[in-house]
């Protein structure tokens, strides 16, 4: 019983971490229809910056949010404006390769500057163990869990309650109609991309006290994030959240019962099943989508 409880708690903690990483990706996908293969690298950059700012200023890693979120927001806007937007009418291959190219360039740029070393942001109390009776968690994990809920809730409110949010949703549903209604679609896309990257910036800051970062770190998370985005139903933020929790649990349970070596097969197996049999995602309505014929 204790074991099962531990597995569940571990799975949920891991799941909310995945949720943090995936929310931005799913937002970007839902609105701009671009799969951002460089998403993990934005997170890696965020973690690197957290490390640098924390060590130079000697402040608590969470305080770096003040710098990193705006910085990544602007970075996202620039990438959308100068890389993605010019390709809006191009072939899908070309869009994919724009972000793949960006990802390769970012990884190697960091390799050139920082080498392949690991950088450890001070844990600043975030690795403190909390005893839940049947299982233990880290303070940092609890923070991540709470923040992922806030982030999902916040984005949901933003998209449903604000003028900008409505404009973003309108664009997602019908680009042309939105344009006719006087919505500046390319501006919406920039803002969306900025918000998506800012979200992964928050994830980066919260992850930093728990994980070392190196040039390849983004790669460890991004494939899982894709799985979650597709599973949650494309562009659905709450869907992605629950999908992330499910993947976290799958990860935890298969890791224990099947062995860590087969975890990958389980996760990607589920992913393929969903792509093939329920392409609208686990929670999406079985409607006709742009990506299936």
């Amino acid at each position, binding site marked *: 019983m204790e074991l099962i409880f531990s597995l569940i708690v571990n799975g949920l903690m891991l799941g909310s971490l995945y949720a943090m990483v995936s929310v931005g990706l799913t937002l970007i996908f839902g609105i701009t229809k671009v799969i951002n293969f460089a998403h993990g690298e934005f997170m890696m950059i965020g973690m690197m910056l957290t490390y640098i700012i924390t060590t130079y200023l000697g402040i608590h890693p969470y305080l770096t949010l003040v710098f990193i979120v705006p910085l990544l927001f602007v970075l996202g806007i620039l990438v959308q404006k100068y890389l993605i937007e010019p390709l809006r009418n191009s072939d899908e291959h070309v869009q994919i*390769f*724009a972000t793949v190219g960006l990802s*390769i360039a970012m990884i190697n740029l960091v390799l050139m500057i920082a080498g392949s070393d690991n950088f450890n942001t001070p844990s600043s109390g975030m690795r403190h163990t909390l005893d839940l009776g049947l299982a233990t968690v880290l303070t940092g994990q609890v923070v991540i869990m709470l923040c992922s809920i806030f982030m999902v809730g916040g984005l949901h409110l933003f998209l449903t309650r604000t003028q900008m949010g409505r404009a973003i949703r309108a664009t997602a549903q019908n680009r042309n109609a939105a344009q006719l209604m006087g919505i500046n679609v390319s501006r919406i896309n920039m803002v969306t991309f900025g918000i998506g990257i800012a979200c992964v910036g928050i994830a980066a800051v919260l992850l930093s006290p728990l994980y070392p970062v190196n040039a390849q770190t983004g790669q460890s998370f991004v494939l899982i994030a894709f799985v979650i985005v597709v599973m949650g139903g494309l562009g659905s933020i709450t869907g992605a959240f629950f999908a992330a929790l499910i993947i976290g649990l799958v990860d935890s349970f298969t890791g224990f019962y099947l062995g860590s070596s087969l975890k990958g097969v389980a996760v990607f197996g589920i992913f393929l099943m969903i792509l093939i049999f329920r392409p609208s995602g686990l929670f999406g309505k079985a409607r006709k989508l742009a990506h299936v014929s």
Partner: protein
Amino acid sequence: MNDKTISSTPARNHGGGMRWLFNKKILFFATLASLIIIPIGVGDDYIYHIFITICLFAGLSTAWNIVGGYAGQLSLGHAIYYGIGAYTGMLMLNSGVSPWISMFVGAILAAGVAVAISYPCFKLHGPFYALASIAFLEVFHVISLNWVGLTGGANGVMVPLEMGWSTMIFTERLPSLVIVFGLMSFSLAVAWVIRRSKLGFQLIATRERESAARGAAIRTVHVRLYAAAISAGLTAMLGTFHGSYLTYIEPESAFNLTFSIQIVLFALVGGLGTVFGPLYGTILLVPITELARGWLGSSAIGLHGFVYGVVLILVVLFMPDGIMSLIQRYLPSSRVRRLDASVENSVDHVPLDDINKPTRPPIGEVVLKVEHLDKHFGGLHVTNDLSFDLHKGEVLGIIGPNGAGKTTVFNMISGFLRADSGSVAVLGEDGHFISPKTPGAFARSGVGRTFQIVQPFAAMTVEENIMVGAFYRFRSVEECRKAAREIASELGLNRFLDEEARNLPIGGLKRLEVARVMAMRPRILLLDEVMAGINPADLREAIELIKVIRNSGISIIAIEHVMQAVMELSDRVIVISSGEILAQGKPEEVVKNEAVIEAYLGKEASDASNE
């Protein structure tokens, strides 16, 4: 749209007197020859290695391009097939079987795997197909790590260093180069043949417009599976070679995502979907990386990866069609096909005098029976118990306000949409009524359709577009070409034969749409608003054109908003409103029907007079 044609025309004239020298064909064969001659000339092992690497990647990229470029399925998992080939070769060599044999075993295995994993994935497009292919690659990687009994797990497989042609392991480098050059040339030849074959046209048509391709009786899933199998087979053969060349493989390098991306990168830089683009892309990029390594030393960690990333971004931003687009622009092809300069002025005019006008045969028996069609979209009742017949040689006009369900009816009587209930029966050539289910089946039973929103295969020439329609009637490409030319001349399109469809003006596209359907020699023709958006002069010609088609004995159903055309062409008119038949009869009677005027004509008649 037309600008492109005009601007590219003078550029193509550049060759001038030197044309024979800077000819695409000559460039190609010179390039190919240099891949062998340079290393032999230099005689250096390292240069050999670079050229072997070039040939390997050029071959892999070319093979990838068959499925990634022609069929438009962006696979990032091609290392699967490479790995299968490499492992098959190594394992069989260890049990005494020469790579010359295992190469084919590996190819067949890889082709089988490709079919098995592509079949469920082909309904995915663009990024989703790419993600699925990555997921499959991960799965194969894990399998190769865990199936220790077969693959040796993480330790990989190696072969004893027994030199010779039978093991494909050599001390000197020339034999390896010759083999990989041969394999690359074979890949290129296969890619070239496919591009010129029926399969190639069908693949590109499918990539460009899947629905239109299905309408033209192309088995879109089948052709893509053929492409995937061929591509995987070629990739595996190169994998077998590379296994022998490395004499050692392990899961890490065999089922590697970076390796897969590299393969695609060369094809993208060279030019997606072109026959020779991957070759030129590889020839450009591999030496650049090698030189960068030499100049900048080995100490600059990440530099060459950074260069790759930046090159990739620059290429997609500024040269999305790759190197081949430059070659196309500045080098003339050996077969000079060009537009007459005068044509651009008279783009839309069909020389009516060219068209012979047979006399109209009498209206005959029923050829299409539509009975009690019902269709719901969610809560919306789109068609409600709709029934009508079509007679041989008849022109049936369908009119109705926007959203009345006209196009839905078309979709149901051409197989693109399945009705909730009711039936559609087509008179077969043997005199029996049949009920086809899929677009392909409808097409084969003699029903051809156009699309309201024109669906040309944009990257194909006009001639090729029409040929796609002819494919299901003829076996050989040449017969199709001949048929396409005949139809083009019937429809006044023969001047544009070599122009890419995307460069045609809207009137031309509409006509192309009809031409493609006519190439299928349908007995029943469904025309979806072919008159919309064309100017009055062309309208006249279009009406005459349809008369010609009608006079040749083809039955026609036309959805049309242009009243002039409806009135003049239709033998009978059906008015659909809210999914039901509001009225039917002779055009002049329907026009006088008060319900119709109220529901529809009041508005539409004034529209028509404005046109």
